[in-house]
């Protein structure tokens, strides 16, 4: 498993990402909770749109298209890319191996 934290310090939204296989997602009224069983860290998704993006990342060739599919156009992606970058830093997200 490639380790996003150590090899890709810069979050590249043009690459294909996915949830770390050890991360569990629990939807909540405000968004969702993420829990990483490996690092034992908890994170919060603060709305349902980012939840949709996170859950669909694996189906997209890059992050921007996942955002677009969730209804976030390129001009509004800044906060989402920032949030996803934070998740990548904490290893909640990893680069898809095969792409």
């Amino acid at each position, binding site marked *: 498993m490639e380790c996003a934290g150590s090899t890709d310090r810069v979050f590249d939204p043009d690459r294909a990402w996915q949830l770390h296989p*050890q991360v*569990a997602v*629990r*939807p*909540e*009224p*405000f968004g969702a*909770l993420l*829990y990483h*069983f*490996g690092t*034992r860290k*908890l994170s*919060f998704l*603060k*709305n349902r749109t980012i939840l949709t993006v996170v859950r669909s990342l694996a189906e997209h060739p890059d992050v921007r298209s996942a955002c677009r599919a969730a209804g976030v156009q390129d001009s509004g992606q800044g906060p989402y890319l920032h949030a996803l970058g934070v998740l990548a830093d904490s290893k909640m997200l990893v680069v898809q191996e095969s792409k």
Partner: protein
Amino acid sequence: MTVPRLIEQFEHGLDAPICLTWELTYACNLACVHCLSSSGKRDPRELSTRQCKDIIDELERMQVFYVNIGGGEPTVRPDFWELVDYATAHHVGVKFSTNGVRITPEVATRLAASDYVDVQISLDGATAEVNDAVRGPGSFAMAVGALENLAAAGFSDAKISVVVTRHNVDQLDEFAALAGRYGATLRITRLRPSGRGADVWEDLHPTAAQQVQLYDWLVARGERVLTGDSFFHLSGLGEPGALAGLNLCGAGRVVCLIDPVGDVYACPFVLHDEFRAGSVRDPGGFAHVWRHSELFLELREPASAGACASCGSYDACQGGCMAAKFFTGLPLDGPDPECVKGFGEDALAGTAVAMVPAAGSSDHSWKPVTLGRTMGSTRRATGAAAPVV
């Protein structure tokens, strides 16, 4: 989206707890003077293996990510490892607290092989003298032996869990060094006057000056130290956000406790009939208690600032810890007994004959437990009623 909005959501409660403490047994090989759950003897009504597995199934359905298993000493239950394996196989991670009694080299090797089990070793002194006065003779050597076994087996990042007291607050750097030696992480939490802790709280809780010392230490060196968000009553001492964490009482909102007989309480520090929300044996089980118990719904309502309304620090500390107030006889809408502005001490002085709640039905102590001889005598703060067994 801003952070306060998220905290508001937490105040209204979640579909399932984030942090669930499950005390598996009241049985314990030690008799710590400050035991929150007044443990000692096993309760004959404790949940069976089957009932425990049913709870794990329910936690899996509710997507509770992990449980904090404690006791008593949970590892003395004959089915303990079976339950740990069952939980992790059902996507419920386990973090368990132990005094180390069963952490042999063989067990340590098994634990090191799992990504889904975390171990927390309790230690209340960085030296045997300070630790054993509270936790009993030999308990320091036992805990350190467990840490050695875990490190030797390659178990990474065990937790060393310390309850901060008047006698160990000067040892925080030593605790951090001890953790470093075993590749472990230090976790420090607040002493609560709960269970047998009520009997020793006056003698053991940090003084006002020590509270400031503790706060300063956390701000300066606490970055890698876990606290379970337990020191939010200190947040009025500095800038908002200087202390990591949510700074919010999570009782019934993000936290709750299941006790060994299946009773559900608002938090691990209020094992008392007044904070009993229901039982996992009730129709609808744990999920029903979490979502519909009157007590939990009440705790999710906005709390009144009460006597603290005019204090400029209320936004920072939210009035402090419910359990600390309850077990020192203070009103729940008043200041914390360790209020950093001194209002708690004033309130305690004003209620010298306050009704401190009797121990209630959950006392499982072997016999009256007293502080080790280095600590002086014990006394219950206000001479409350004897435990009802």
